[in-house]
């Protein structure tokens, strides 16, 4: 076996191992990412899975119980809505009517149990929210 071939085989082994790890990682550490309307449409398929759902936090629906650190709100998109319960601190960002992503799964009572809540920051390159040109 020539040195060049040995080197190429070594490089292939390293790349092969990384590709395998990549596929394994993608399989083990991934979530479906859906809008509220997509999630509602395919509830049967996704109900038992941990998924990420994106929508707008409906301002009037936001209720925070500081005694139990429980946040309840509805996430909406394209006319569909999803009740969410989240245990944790109140989000800091400008969260009412903000775009948000929740990660969790559907609870038995029809409320989505969110383990993680991400409020999406405003787009840095877009105009400030009050701009209306």
């Amino acid at each position, binding site marked *: 076996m020539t040195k060049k071939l040995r080197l190429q085989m070594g490089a292939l082994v390293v*790349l092969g191992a*990384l590709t395998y790890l990549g596929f394994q990682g993608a399989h083990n550490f991934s979530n479906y990412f859906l809008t509220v309307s997509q999630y509602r449409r395919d509830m049967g398929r996704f109900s038992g899975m941990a998924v990420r759902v994106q929508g707008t936090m409906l301002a009037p629906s936001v209720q925070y119980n500081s005694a139990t650190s429980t946040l309840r709100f509805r996430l909406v998109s394209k006319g569909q809505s999803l009740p969410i319960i989240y245990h944790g601190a109140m989000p*800091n960002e400008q969260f009412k009517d903000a775009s948000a*992503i929740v990660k969790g799964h559907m609870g038995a009572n029809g409320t989505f149990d969110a383990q993680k809540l991400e409020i999406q920051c405003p787009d840095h390159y877009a105009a400030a*929210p009050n701009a209306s040109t």
Partner: protein
Amino acid sequence: MPELGRYALLLAGTSAFYTAGIGAWNYRAQSARLKESTRGAAVAIALALTFAVLVLEYLLVAGDYQVQAVYNHTDRALPLLFKMGALWGGDAGSVLFWGWILSLYTAFAAWRSWPREDRMTPLAVPILAGLLVFFTGMSNLVVNPFRLVAGNPVNGAGLDPLLQNLVMTIHPPAMYIGLIGMAVPAAYLMAALWTRMPSVEWVPVIRRWMLFSWMFLSAAIILGGMWAYMELGWGGYWEWDPVENASLMPWLAATAFLHALQIEERRGMFRWWTALLGISSFLLTLVGTYITRSGVLKNSVHSFTGTGVGPYFVGLFWTVAVGALIVLVLRRDQLRDKMALTTAFSKEGIYLLINMLFASLATIVLVGTFYPVISKAVLGTTVVLTVHFFNSLSVPIFLVLVLMLGAAPVMGWRAARLRQVVRRLGVPWAVGLAACVLAYTQGFRTVLQCGGVGVSVFAAASMVQEFYRAARARRRSGTPGWLLALYGTVNSNRRRYGGYIAHLAFLIIVLGVVGSHTNNLAVTTTLRPGQQIAMRGYRMMYRGLGTSSHGGYQLLDARLDVERGGRVVREDPGLEFFRGSAQPVAAVAIDGGVMEDLYLVLEGTPGHQAATVQIFVNPMVSWIWIGMYVLVAGTLLAMGAPAHGDAALVRAWEFTGEDTKRRGRSILAAVPGRSGHD
């Protein structure tokens, strides 16, 4: 006033066209007058764009809200510094800013480098001017920052409150200087290949340009983490968000490129690979720009809605990619390897592995970032990869990289001797092992935590050993005192020792990352006035809530007296309420220390003066910031090497065997006035 800005943009666009067109045409015509004219036109672009930037800055500071870029991103209450920073806060302003920085690079190359690199620069400048045609075209036709709004507004919409932070004012310019700077080495690489320059001519030029950009990009990435840590209130600094990945990808490619240049310089090997990395570093900056401007990725914590400029950057990406590929194919004879790899157990073998690992990391980050788009196209459903995906793949790769980094200084070129390598690494391994044991007793209990510390300290000890060995050799040759010997060592080869300092900085950052994921604490609690809480050696007494008025916002803060080791400090985590925005932004309170930070966030006020406070104890985060300063210092030192004397010296022991000894002598002989035995 806005008209003046528009005229300046028109002048810049015309000059860019002239520089690109006439400069490229004159490559064949070789007219001395046209050559000087092109040079002047390159400077004219920079002057025109500087004028346009100054006009926009004036409008921002003076508050001319009829101008859209001013109206959209400032208001009367905004402090002066943030008004000035609003230049790059918006879409139109940031495209102008991008073009301006690129024009400064181009003008500098034309003005200063033209006489020095008189074959490459006259071609590199038109290539850069071609990019400027794109950016000035965007500013003139697509996102003109001097466009006016309807009506006669007397106040603006204000700057996003999250961007009103000093670090966020510094971070974008540093990022732009780094990202845009990648265009210069790419342009020089194309020019060098096209003009068939020998690598001994172009490697030092390209390395310097790349080092400069790489330094700014490195600092900007860490400053971005610092901003997230200080401003967002979640206690962390990195979360593999697409916007973070957008800047990391070119950094990884550029780091691989800088190491590939070493092999190109010493051995003339893997030349196709080196050229591809140089181009990829720049192309990945365009990919990053596309991510942040196109709205293609919906899974970011930044809601990039798409500002309309994304498709233009896609066009630029493919134009540059295809153009570069044509040059590489037409000049493939220039990319033929000069030597072959003798054995993988050699310095070039280590460099090759380092290259592969950095390139693999860049690929993983690229594929991982675009996975939602790929999965949507292939599977029909959007799938997002979690933080664990990136961590599980990158952490082992980074550990191997750190290991290689520790081994590389003692490896010989061509074929390293196992016995020699083992002997030279004996002390670093002993130090690393001792650090591992010490770390274990301090709570670094998992394999990754304990192993991470051990491997990083091993690599750091290997670097320090290089300084020690060289200084000791100087002492033996008569230099009085260790400090003088060390100074003489570093000064005699700033490039090598600057590089080692940059490597040490990287290791400090790695230790900071490992430490910040070890024994950290996060607790959320509701406190009533007069209530005390104790944890991790801190005793906190909550005094109550307070309010105060500041420029543009009202502050509600929780006042806590924090005592540790007899030292009492006042910490006021708060919530900032901005005009026109009902919901607050966190004002995080950080009691920073070298070994740990106390990080306090006011989560809410449930009533009766009570405060819900999130308390974090974050170990070793400051190491990451310290590492950034050391990295900048090391890179500056490396760039401070004499312009044409910065070829790295080869030490005699780095070549083994009869044949290589001869080669070692010939290389040393080629560097006048230098001794290779450092």
